């Protein structure tokens, strides 16, 4: 009885956040990177796209904090602007995944066992069967390489992730008594999904969204690396890595800094996702104590 009542000695939300080390590290790393992207709109140490050939391949120094690349561009500025590209691509891609995936999952759960459910879930399986990169290559083969096509490719890959998550959690909510009494009150599947199901799965969606966001950044970097993402001269982390490849012995800083940017961002978002899940899911919160 008293054991299963977490409200008895529930510490404040802030204290719980402070207690979770992974959440703090995650939030700090993510904030750093989002902050860099925002600041880049008003200020960067140098213009990220201006070449300065005489100044090329400078190692990190007091003027160019992260050094310069083979065209003499400031790497610190490029990483700041590149963060912008990564955020935009990953955010819009996750948005596409949620906007299409969540309604599909809700519909599928509302009509469980019907032909509609089968159609949606088998469609999901089909998309899952192709790796995101393959879809991206297919799209760019048809429409040509650009940031927009990268967004679409990553977005398509996100749809089944959200559709499955939504369907799974919605199915368990459909058996709750409050959903039954809403049905007795004559509410249709659409209203019940919006009023009763969706608000109770937002926690899960936020957590999954954070993790998909980090995967999106990774995918964007991968696509730019093979030349299918944002096109020059727009700076992008993936392409910075690709450019550094031939000069790796001559100027290792060209590879190190974008590499670390990707690593820390993905790590930060993943830690934040894990921390949020622990915080938002009361069962895990109790288990951790």
């Amino acid at each position, binding site marked *: 009885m*008293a054991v299963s009542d977490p409200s008895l*000695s529930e510490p404040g939300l802030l204290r719980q956040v402070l207690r979770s080390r992974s959440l703090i590290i995650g939030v700090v790393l993510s904030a750093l990177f989002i902050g860099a992207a925002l600041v880049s709109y008003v200020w960067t140490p140098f213009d990220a796209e201006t070449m300065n050939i005489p100044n090329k391949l400078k190692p990190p120094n007091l003027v160019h904090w992260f050094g310069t690349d083979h065209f003499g561009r400031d790497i610190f500025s490029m990483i700041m602007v590149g963060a912008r590209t990564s955020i935009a691509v990953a955010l819009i891609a996750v948005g596409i995944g949620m906007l299409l995936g969540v309604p599909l999952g809700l519909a599928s759960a509302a009509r469980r066992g019907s032909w509609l459910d089968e159609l949606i879930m088998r469609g999901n399986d089909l998309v899952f069967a192709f790796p995101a990169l393959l879809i991206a290559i297919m799209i760019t083969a048809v429409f040509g390489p650009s940031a927009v096509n990268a967004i679409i490719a990553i977005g398509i890959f996100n749809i089944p992730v959200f559709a499955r998550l939504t369907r799974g959690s919605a199915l368990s909510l459909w058996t709750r*008594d409050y959903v039954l009494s809403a049905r*007795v009150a004559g*509410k249709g599947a659409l209203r019940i999904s919006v009023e009763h199901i969706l608000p*109770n799965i937002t926690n899960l969606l936020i957590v999954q969204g954070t993790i998909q966001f980090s995967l999106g950044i990774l995918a964007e970097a991968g696509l730019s690396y093979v030349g299918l993402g944002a096109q020059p001269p727009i700076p992008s982390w993936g392409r910075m890595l690709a450019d550094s490849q031939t000069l790796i012995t001559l100027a290792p800083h060209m590879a190190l800094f974008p590499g670390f940017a990707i690593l820390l961002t993905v790590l930060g978002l993943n830690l934040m996702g894990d921390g949020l899940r622990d915080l938002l899911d009361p069962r895990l919160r109790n288990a951790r104590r």
Partner: protein
Amino acid sequence: MSLLQIDQLNLAIHGTPILRDVSFHLDAGQIVGVIGESGSGKSMTAYSVMQLLPEGSTTTGAIRLNGDNLLDLSEEQMCALRGDELGMVFQEPMTALNPVKSIGDQVAETVRIHRKASRAESLRIARETLDRVELPADRFPLSRFPHELSGGQRQRVVIAMAIALRPKVLIADEPTTALDVTTQAQILKLLRRLVREDNMALMLISHDLAVVSDLADEIVIMKSGTVVETGSAKTLFQSMTHPYTKKLFEASSHVPDRAEAESRTAAPLLKVSHVSRDYALPRTSLFAPPPKFRAVNDVSFQIQQGESLGLVGESGCGKSTLTRAILGLEEVQEGTILIDGVPVFSGHQVRRDIRQKMQVVFQDPYGSFNPRHRVARLVCEPFHLLDRPPRGAARAEAVAEALESVGLDEADGRKYIHEFSGGQRQRIAIARALIIKPKLIVLDEAVSALDVSIRAQILDLLADLSDRFGLTYLFISHDLSVVRSITDRVLVMKAGQIVEEGRTDAVFDNPQHAYTQSLIAAAPRLPDRQEQKEVSQ
């Protein structure tokens, strides 16, 4: 000296006091019933004995087993005692067993841990123990898995695990609460036999006064972390010195005052005729059609306006399926269900004017509400059925009226559901059902999850509301005493069929069908009230 002596036990969890000065004792061969409502600390007392308390607990006082204070023992020493000298049986047999291990392995595990016995030896002891809990080898080989057993059989396996090493003290925490009455009677009988055979001490924890008074030698009554009264079962119910004991006793056998049902109008409000419902079972072969399970089989009955009808049956008898069909949540394959002479389903849809006539109150006060809405919005949900739902001030007024009619406050509408206790939540559920003034309210085990004193209040409320608004109730329950106290007529259902039907008094006093007789015989009974009155006068 007693076998288990609990002495001035105090328990606090994260600084919140849970138990205060709890003292009682158990002797070998004795059954001590610990009675209390939720939050009384009865389970925490048991967990203290087992030293299975949640983190952040601090205990003072003493719990002596054979003179050793359990509170002083290390976790390692406690591990050696648990399962060996101290056995425990939990409430929920569905989750107390590991679903991926066979029952033989689970019973043998205790033996192997404590006796360092070989696998063959421990399996032999497991077999013996399962025989002792009346699970014979020919029908229940050791290789059976929990999902192949019924709830009562699983509870027997749980008991076998607890008694495999013939512990001196057995603690049973609500061992029969999750079971049907007939199964409950069998499990109680089994426990009593085991206590006599092994000369064990049994601590039987329950919220149900009748269960305990049937079985126990000594009774301990707890309330908000303290022991309010102890005494032998024979004399305690006759003296009842503490007012709480008296209150608990009266609430357990509470019969609400109800006005005599009005003279019957000709047309029935609800008419169910020859209804059957099949469910498809998993296919056995690729080509044959899947076999069917008939959950409801040719059921017919009717309810008059203003009547209160009980539907009694054990789990799996088809009463839930029938309820869902009446509420228009699931279609039936055969037969018709008419409300005011109009079928519930027309085409595959339920018309709104039909839905307006009925509402439902479910069993679980914790699961019946969307936790993210305020009470006012929750209560308003059935307004969806009205063509012109009230808005603004009229809506607020309707909410206030509904909340006040169930004994709550207008201001409660602004709160969230987690701010209310179980009993208050059930009142809110009733308010939600009342708000569109339906004719029929289906009460699906609506008081089963509540403490006795709260249950008595809710029953009073239901009786009062039916008098005031002329409501008709379909009261579905497995609890015979509740059904007896609030219904005019009763239907007894078994394996999808109605086996007996009649006026409630007549059915209870003179049951005709063998199944009804066994149900009534199995229901635990409180000591005679007459006798108790004489003594108290």
